[in-house]
């Protein structure tokens, strides 16, 4: 099977204040029909440039992009505009027309295609139903929440009946809850309509949530690519490891040798004392041991904490814990 998007030796550089920026270096990637392909990297890695090369919003300086059998570089301006109708795109900041109502935003690509207004409105309404916003048809974007705006953008993109959907950080401006629902919607679109989706993101969670494949971009280079499972099970490149482990990286190694044992009584266990203390001193403590027991119907907990190396800071923390009405006892030579 031929890939629906074939990226061959893609190069992109541009001048920025007399500096030559080499944004993409010899990127090669095949994306197949029906994939949800994640492209992940730190900000400035070149992933936004890469996605803009897929619909030629940015013209590559080398190599080629072949979409659905057509080499985009070989197309005339008019042919390119036609080709773009098959490649939808949604954005981090939604990019809706603020002076048009929701339904007129969805009608926009249909107007470009030359559809009659009444027909366009009917079709637009169908797409608004798919994204669950038919009752907002007459509202204006300024009256919508971020998640609703992105849904309108998705309805607008679906209206041109694309084969490919490019998502440029489409959930980065949304809260986690909304992000989940938008990702769910994208997944449905992929399954229902067989639209190939390319997801640009800096969050591994997004890739885990919906992608079938992932490519990791690091400083304009394609560091690694494959199925999400492969990459997660055995990341090979340094960048892949960093992105995968970023969630549970150890903050710093604890060097302090002072330990304290604290005992929570019934009342104090409601207050997140340790959490508050860490926030107050902006220094982590290490919990070495923790246990709760029921003593005569009263819940008691004990915990052993490893304090930071700094003696003054340690003293302050002990004072803080005592201030929170906890029993504090310093342990000698608990860690070696």
């Amino acid at each position, binding site marked *: 099977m031929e890939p629906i998007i074939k990226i061959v030796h893609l190069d992109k550089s541009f001048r920025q204040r007399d500096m030559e920026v080499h944004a993409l270096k010899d990127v090669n990637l095949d994306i197949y029909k029906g994939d949800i392909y994640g492209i992940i990297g730190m900000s400035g890695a070149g992933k936004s440039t890469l996605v803009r090369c897929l*619909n030629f*919003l940015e013209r590559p300086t080398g190599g080629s992009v072949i979409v659905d059998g057509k080499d985009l570089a070989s197309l005339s301006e008019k042919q390119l*505009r*036609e*080709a*773009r*109708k098959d*490649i*939808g*795109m949604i*954005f981090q*900041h939604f*990019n*809706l*027309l*603020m*002076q*048009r*109502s929701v339904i007129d935003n969805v009608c*926009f*690509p249909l*107007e*470009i*295609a030359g559809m009659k207004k009444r027909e366009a409105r009917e079709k637009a309404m169908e797409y608004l139903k798919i994204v669950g916003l038919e009752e907002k048809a007459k509202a*204006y974007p*300024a*009256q919508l929440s971020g998640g609703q705006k992105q849904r309108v*953008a998705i309805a*607008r993109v679906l209206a*041109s009946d694309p084969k490919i959907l*490019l998502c440029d950080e489409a959930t980065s401006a949304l809260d986690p809850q909304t992000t989940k629902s938008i990702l769910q919607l994208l997944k449905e679109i992929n399954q229902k309509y067989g639209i190939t989706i390319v997801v640009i993101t800096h969050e591994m969670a997004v890739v885990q949530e919906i992608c079938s494949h992932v490519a990791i971009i690091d400083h304009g280079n394609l560091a690694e690519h494959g199925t999400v499972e492969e990459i997660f099970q055995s990341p090979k490149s340094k960048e892949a490891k960093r992105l995968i482990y970023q969630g549970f990286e150890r903050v710093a190694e604890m060097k302090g040798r002072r330990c304290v044992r604290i005992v929570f009584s019934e009342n104090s266990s409601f207050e997140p004392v340790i959490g508050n203390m860490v926030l107050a001193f902006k220094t982590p403590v290490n919990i070495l041991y923790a246990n709760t027991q029921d003593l005569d119907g009263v819940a008691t907990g004990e915990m052993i904490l490893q304090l930071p190396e700094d003696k003054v800071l340690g003293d302050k923390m002990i004072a803080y814990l005592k201030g929170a009405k906890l029993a504090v006892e310093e342990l000698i030579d608990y860690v070696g």
Partner: protein
Amino acid sequence: MLDEKMIMLLIEGIGQTLYMTLVPTLLGYVFGMPLGILLTVTDKDGIRPNAVVYKVIDFISNIFRSIPFLILLILLIPLTKILVGKSYGSNAMIVSLTIAAAPYIARMVESSLKEVDHGVIEAAQSMGASNLTIVFKVLLTEARTSLMVNATIVTATILGYSAMAGTVGADGLGAIAVRYGYNRYQFDIMLVTVILLVLLVQIMQGIGMMLSRRFDRRRT
């Protein structure tokens, strides 16, 4: 003093001032709007960069805008004679006022259109919109509030110019102020014309702001 004859003269003056303000503003937009669009489109961040076109329009509009209006009026006397047949009166002034207004309007339009979020233009491009579609359906519509606010400012400025033209042979309230207030030391007449000019500007400003707010859909 303010007898019936004077009042009639003032009413006629208001009419002439409105004529000399609104017609050149309208004509100014006929020429200035396309120039402003061209400046936006051909600028280096525009949708069709073209350094030559941009620099030519930029240069011409800067020249015209740097000539003080009164001097431009005198410079244009031969041209107005060819176009209108005489170098004084409201119609003659319309030629000069339009020529003064067009480059200024071009700049105002350019600044309004450049306020349009680049992301929205990019979105339209990604949908396969042509540049013409982007100009008419994205730039001009998205910028309409700003265009209307700027049109209000332009109209008030042209009104000021039309009054200034009263010193070199135009009609209208400016001419009355010069003739009676300056040449005949009738300070009260001058004061009345000034109050009328202020009122005209206030009314135009009020209408312009109301319209721009009414057509703005960005409110929550």
